[in-house]
């Protein structure tokens, strides 16, 4: 079975080119449109009680903000409770550290095969690629992830990684890689993947998973899923490694109830998932299954930067439901691959600059029409458009300006010409005489307006000053009345 990763993925630095290519891909646009329309309709149906929805959103926002307000203490409490239960907790500041910790555990066990439940953080640290370079095979077990891994691609949606693929494409992939018959029967295709993966669970040395919520009070790691691949990956192999961003902690067990109540409904319009798995430590001495050894890797990778300041901190409330991308007019037209980041769509536009720096991601916060659809559907009320505006400002700010909370890559989009233009705008609009002079100049020489005006005229007619200024028109009106 070929599940090797091919590495020619789009990068966020080339976002503009990526999106142009995606816009030209008609089948992709069609399948995205159909999928997003269906997801939006299903969400609406299961969240039709407006009063319940708004009260639940407020509660979930409170749960997440409460946890973030005590984040360092909760992380320590989580570590204490996990350690008591026999879980080894590792902290990683960077991607490299997280990769090495996981590789170190694999090495101790002489592990050669890892089975992975769904984990966006493991995508973030490019774990498959890293382990492959060390001679270790990591196989994705979530069906969508399994498909994109086989195709040598990256997930294009955080909840439905293979949303961009048709069943015919999946069938061809399976045919070429698993030797199965060509079919457009989804049940059959699912069965082929089931057969291939059950051998992997059985023989894997290590199972890796993500974490939806980590409960500080009890040292419990929660996993939300439909397929059972998460349960199998965390139960059958002798070692379980969980990996999560440091922001995923909640204070108390009861906190997971409202969050879980919203997650499947907001994400895919499903009233509840098939499984909600709560793991509290490895197998105890008399128990007959479950991992003999368990680890948790807590990853920072820029999250502490977002945490440093109140407005940005709200980015970390996210529960990764993907609703913001399902409702985003930009995502729906270009798809997840164009972003070139682990997290696409609105949440990707506001979290990626913290993870990767604005140098690489400066175009992402501009990929937004500020329609606010994402804000309206976010189950934890993240003011996404506000964050977007702030990141645009940070990208435009002079790189030399001293600020209280510097953002990695500050000034990545700073342009001397643009800052001069804004200064002129400010100067002329802030002073009566200058403003009048500008008005006279613009109306008198309007015939000289260039027909080509940077990016604007690519999609719009050229801007041309009016024949008369507002003042002139008002003055004339007054005169006519007298």
């Amino acid at each position: 079975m070929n599940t090797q990763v091919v590495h020619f993925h789009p990068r966020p630095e080339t976002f503009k080119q990526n999106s142009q290519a995606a816009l030209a891909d008609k089948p992709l646009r069609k399948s995205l449109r159909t999928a997003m329309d269906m997801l939006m309709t299903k969400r609406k149906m299961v969240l039709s009680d407006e009063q319940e929805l708004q009260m639940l959103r407020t509660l979930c926002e409170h749960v997440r903000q409460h946890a973030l307000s005590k984040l360092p203490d909760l992380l320590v409490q989580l570590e204490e409770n996990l350690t008591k239960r026999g879980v080894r907790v590792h902290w990683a500041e960077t991607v490299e550290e997280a990769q090495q910790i996981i590789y170190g555990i694999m090495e101790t066990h002489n592990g050669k095969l890892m089975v992975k439940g769904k984990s966006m953080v493991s995508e973030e640290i490019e774990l498959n690629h890293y382990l492959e370079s060390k001679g270790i095979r990591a196989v994705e077990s979530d069906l969508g992830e399994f498909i994109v891994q086989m195709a040598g691609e990256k997930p294009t949606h955080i909840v439905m990684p293979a949303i961009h693929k048709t069943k015919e494409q999946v069938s061809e992939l399976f045919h070429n890689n698993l030797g199965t018959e060509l079919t457009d029967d989804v049940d059959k295709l699912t069965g082929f993947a089931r057969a291939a993966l059950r051998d992997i669970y059985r023989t894997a040395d290590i199972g890796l998973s993500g974490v939806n919520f980590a409960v500080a009070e009890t040292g419990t790691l929660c996993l939300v899923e439909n397929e059972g691949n998460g349960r199998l990956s965390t139960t059958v192999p002798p070692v379980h490694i969980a990996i999560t961003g440091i922001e995923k902690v909640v204070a108390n067990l009861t906190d997971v109830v409202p969050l879980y109540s919203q997650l499947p409904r907001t994400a895919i319009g499903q009233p509840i998932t098939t499984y909600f798995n709560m793991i509290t430590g490895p197998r105890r001495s008399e128990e007959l299954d479950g991992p003999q050894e368990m680890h948790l890797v807590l990853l920072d990778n820029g999250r502490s930067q977002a945490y440093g300041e109140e407005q940005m901190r709200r980015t970390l409330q996210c529960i990764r439901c993907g609703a913001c991308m399902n409702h985003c007019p930009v995502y729906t037209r270009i798809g997840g691959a164009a972003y070139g980041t682990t997290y696409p769509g609105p949440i990707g536009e506001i979290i990626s600059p913290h993870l990767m720096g604005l140098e690489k991601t400066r175009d992402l916060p501009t990929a937004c029409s500020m329609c606010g659809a994402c804000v309206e559907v976010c189950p934890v009320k993240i003011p996404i458009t506000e964050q977007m505006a702030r990141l645009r400002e940070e990208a435009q700010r002079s790189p030399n300006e001293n600020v209280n909370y510097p953002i990695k890559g500050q000034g990545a989009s700073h342009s001397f010409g643009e800052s001069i233009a804004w200064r002129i705008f400010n100067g002329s609009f802030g002073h009566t005489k200058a403003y009048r002079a500008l008005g006279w100049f613009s109306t008198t020489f309007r015939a000289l307006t260039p027909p080509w005006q940077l990016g604007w005229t690519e999609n719009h007619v050229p801007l041309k000053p009016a024949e008369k200024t507002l003042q002139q028109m008002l003055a004339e009106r007054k005169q006519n009345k007298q």
Partner: protein
Amino acid sequence: MSARNNILAKLRKANAYPMDLPRTEEYYQEMSPSWDNEIERLKHWAKCMRAVKTEIFWVRENNWEETLIQVAQQKNLKNMLVSKNTEHGKRATTALQAASLEVRNFEQKIDDWKDEFFAEVDAGFTSSLCGIAHTGTIMLTSSVAEPRSQSLVPPVHFCLFDTRKMYDTFYAAMQGEKLAADMPTNVILISGPSKTADIQLTLAFGAHGPRDLVVLAVLPEHINPADLEVAA
């Protein structure tokens, strides 16, 4: 400084102001669903579970084995993994053996019989801790007698559920069972057989875990199974 200390130092530097506890209890007091009576609640639970392809059979405490055997025979099962240390496991064993169905036990650690377990076991039989009416869910906990893979690896999962242990919501179940006080290694909420919609958003069952979930729902004497099947 270690990564741990660096991360904690950066977070502490932010000086976030601790907030009040969220009012989860108040929310669930106000927003919890309610039903006119026990029958309506059971009907709602069953409707939700059947919507995701769970097979529910209404049974009585004194004869649930009959249904277990009937369904096992209908499904052409050759064997079933049963606990030999629980009361219900012993009763199931006797019944299965009388019907010439092979009974398997979880006698050794999973590591020592994985290949056989994956290849040969047709079904697993467990009990459940409680049910959740609102979402159509059963809750199971791991134990020495019923390890978590008993409900996970075999293609068919039979679950014995005492309907008197039904809670309105997950919140009520969590409080009622005092879960936070002593968490088992694994608590699992199950709402149907394994499924996926990862290929073109088309729903397919039996992705990785059990393809069939059969719930033997034990009714108290005062509830007539026929009342539960009348259209709502």
